[in-house]
């Protein structure tokens, strides 16, 4: 999925949207990245984000919005399989990698490194 130039283009454009929000709105990075995640979830809900991933590969997978998409997809998939309770049980199926890696590598770095300031 994706190609080098679609990854570059789409990834770059998504980041440009982020930069415009950083510079032109009073919202903090925390707000804006949360917004991206929610947007990814909504786009995932209507099936559009998967098509973006197909087209742009890493250009759609790496932005934080894909995290929202993965959570939404997980919830929907499990709900389709096992009923409405699947919304609670299936959510982290597809995204455990991101959170697990962040925790493990963050923890290891905290053991090895000191803040440089």
């Amino acid at each position: 999925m994706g190609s080098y130039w679609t990854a570059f283009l789409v990834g770059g454009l998504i980041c440009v949207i982020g930069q415009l929000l950083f510079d032109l709105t009073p919202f903090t990075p925390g707000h804006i990245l949360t917004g991206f995640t929610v947007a990814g979830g909504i786009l995932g809900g209507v099936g559009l984000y998967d098509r973006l991933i197909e087209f742009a590969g890493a250009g759609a997978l790496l932005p934080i919005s894909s995290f929202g998409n993965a959570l939404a997809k997980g919830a929907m998939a499990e709900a389709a399989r096992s009923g409405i309770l699947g919304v609670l049980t299936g959510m982290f199926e597809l995204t455990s990698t991101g959170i697990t890696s962040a925790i493990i590598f963050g923890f290891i770095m905290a053991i090895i490194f000191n803040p440089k300031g």
Partner: protein
Amino acid sequence: MQSYTIERKIGKQSVLLDKTVTLVSSATVAGPKESLGPLSAFFDRSYNDTILKEKSFERAECHMMEEACHLALAKAGLSPDDIDYFIAGDLLNQVISASFCARRLAVPFLGIYGACSTLTEGLSIGAMLLQGGFARNILVATSSHNCSAERQYRYPTEYGYQRPGYAQWTVTGAGAVVLSSEAGEGPRLESITIGKVVDAGIKDPFALGVAMAPAAADTIYNHFVDMAREPSYYNLILTGDLGGVGKKLNEDILAGKGYTITPNYSDCGVLLYYPHQQVGAGGSGCACSALVFLGYFYEKMLKKELQRVLLVATGALHSPTTYLQRESMPAIAHAVSLEI
């Protein structure tokens, strides 16, 4: 019941001191960025890292304040035993740099919080204690540290984000000064004006200069009115850390009230760094006014190159909690007039 007249109170906010309150010695300790700035030759001790072989940034900041205190005492030929009160403050929660420094000094301690206005708040309180005969020698100190402040007020120090161009850089450093009512060489505190808290409604914690300028203007205005003086009375009017943006705002507000300070006005935040050091609108923090005044201008006064200086340190009195609760940032400025 006897009634007492307040002989020294002038006008609404000012106090006139007689000849007894002298700044007999001062000492400054600077961090890496400050040591690369234009005033580097004037600091007593410079460090080229922010951790100083301590276990945390907080301990490093306390270390700097302790060092400044010991240097100031040594220069005055005094020991901690000679000091009646230690008045100090810093930016950290519960004012820990000052309190932990006081633990080492073992001198009666008055901890204060004025954010970046701590230096002149300390000088004001010290001056009044000396004027009233409640002490003979007082040690005033303040410190700030870029990393400990960043960690407490904003983000962890390795977090990747872009600061706005008008943001200021918290100074890493400490300053200490010995005030005495006994005979001594040095600039004397001639009068002080205690500031009122002024809130301009600014909510952006990066826009410190704009938040503090109205408080600075208010205190300076009231000083001129109380003391019946014009700006030209002083060789130099010096604000603590309004930065490039706040400095201009301060000038404009005062001009609107009929006082033009521009010809002899400067700001410590603007003077401490070179433009290429990427500090946005300039320096901020308790140590900003301490390093610039106690390091550089104190020397100039000793050499009589400046004879009348109005030092106005300015502080923003918000906290991370009030910011998150969408409060604006009230500010304060205290003015001390020095003569030699």
